[in-house]
């Protein structure tokens, strides 16, 4: 008699991801799906896809999804949640979408304490458009629009979204996680699940920033990209919980 240790979640359909080989965005999809299933709310879920590599995520989830304009996913999610407070509404957004063009929308969704869950994929670059500099691109990191590498003098220092949002009262759950090794993935799953729990308990806005890889635009093998997350990203973007809803009293 065998027991299943791991199999694909029913929250994902059989459509194959368009993501490049080894891109950890796929892992994040799995964690969202597994969390929804384990919380028993897959049937209540309404996702909001953004623009960037996550734009096509509506193809993969076994739940209803609305595709939003660039950066506007938190506004679209607000519209959905205000109409259907009984549903579980989440956004999946990359760093170009959330930290750059959608900075206003994410700040104000947090500010209103909008009861939505945001999964923020930070891979420090614009993936879909081909490797341009993001607000989260590290100092010295090369991008197609920072060919000599990002400098503080020219572009400022990378934006720390989790820390920024944790200063906002309406953000009731804020955590930064990574998916660069199995232990990190397990922690990321716990955080994502808790971010949904925050919504289910009606506490307020919840966000999980997930450090992710972009092997293609970083110019690395997928395995080396995991190493770069650990050696370069985590020192600047420290992992951990910044706000938990039981503490926010």
């Amino acid at each position, binding site marked *: 008699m065998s027991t*299943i240790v791991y199999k694909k979640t029913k929250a994902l359909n059989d459509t194959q*991801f368009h993501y490049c080989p080894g891109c950890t965005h796929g892992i994040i999809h799995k964690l969202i799906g597994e969390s929804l299933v384990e919380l028993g709310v897959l049937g209540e879920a309404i996702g909001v896809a953004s623009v960037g590599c996550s734009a096509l995520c509506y193809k993969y989830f076994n739940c209803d999804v609305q595709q939003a304009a660039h950066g506007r996913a938190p506004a679209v999610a607000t519209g959905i949640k205000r109409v259907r407070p009984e549903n579980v509404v989440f956004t999946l957004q990359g760093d170009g979408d959330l930290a750059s063009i959608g900075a206003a929308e994410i700040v104000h969704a947090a500010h209103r304490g909008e009861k939505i869950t945001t999964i923020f994929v930070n891979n420090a670059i614009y993936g879909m458009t081909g490797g341009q500099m993001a607000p989260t691109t590290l100092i010295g990191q090369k991008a197609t629009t920072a060919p000599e590498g990002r400098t503080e003098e020219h572009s400022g220092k990378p934006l720390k979204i989790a820390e920024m949002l944790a200063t906002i009262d309406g953000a009731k759950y804020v955590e930064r996680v990574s998916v660069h090794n*199995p232990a990190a993935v397990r922690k990321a799953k716990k955080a994502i699940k808790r971010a949904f729990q925050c919504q289910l308990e009606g506490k307020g806005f919840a966000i999980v920033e997930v450090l992710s890889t972009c092997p293609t635009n970083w110019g690395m093998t997928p*395995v080396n990209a995991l190493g770069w997350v650990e050696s370069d990203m985590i020192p600047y973007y420290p992992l951990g919980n910044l706000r938990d809803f039981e503490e926010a009293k």
Partner: protein
Amino acid sequence: MAKGLVTFNEDICKGCELCVAVCPKKIIELDQSKINAKGFHPAHVVNMDECIACGNCAIMCPDSVITVEKL
């Protein structure tokens, strides 16, 4: 030690080797004798007897290629 059985949905493997990198027993390799429909050498386990059913390979697989069972 628990025994594991790892199965791969080879057709959708992208050969990224994340599973190879995280296997504590180092028993996963890309199968150089095969090329799947996507044009990749799919991952496979070379010595299933060594598998401890930890699930690391499946957890790290971005494309949900892998199922792990504990025997």
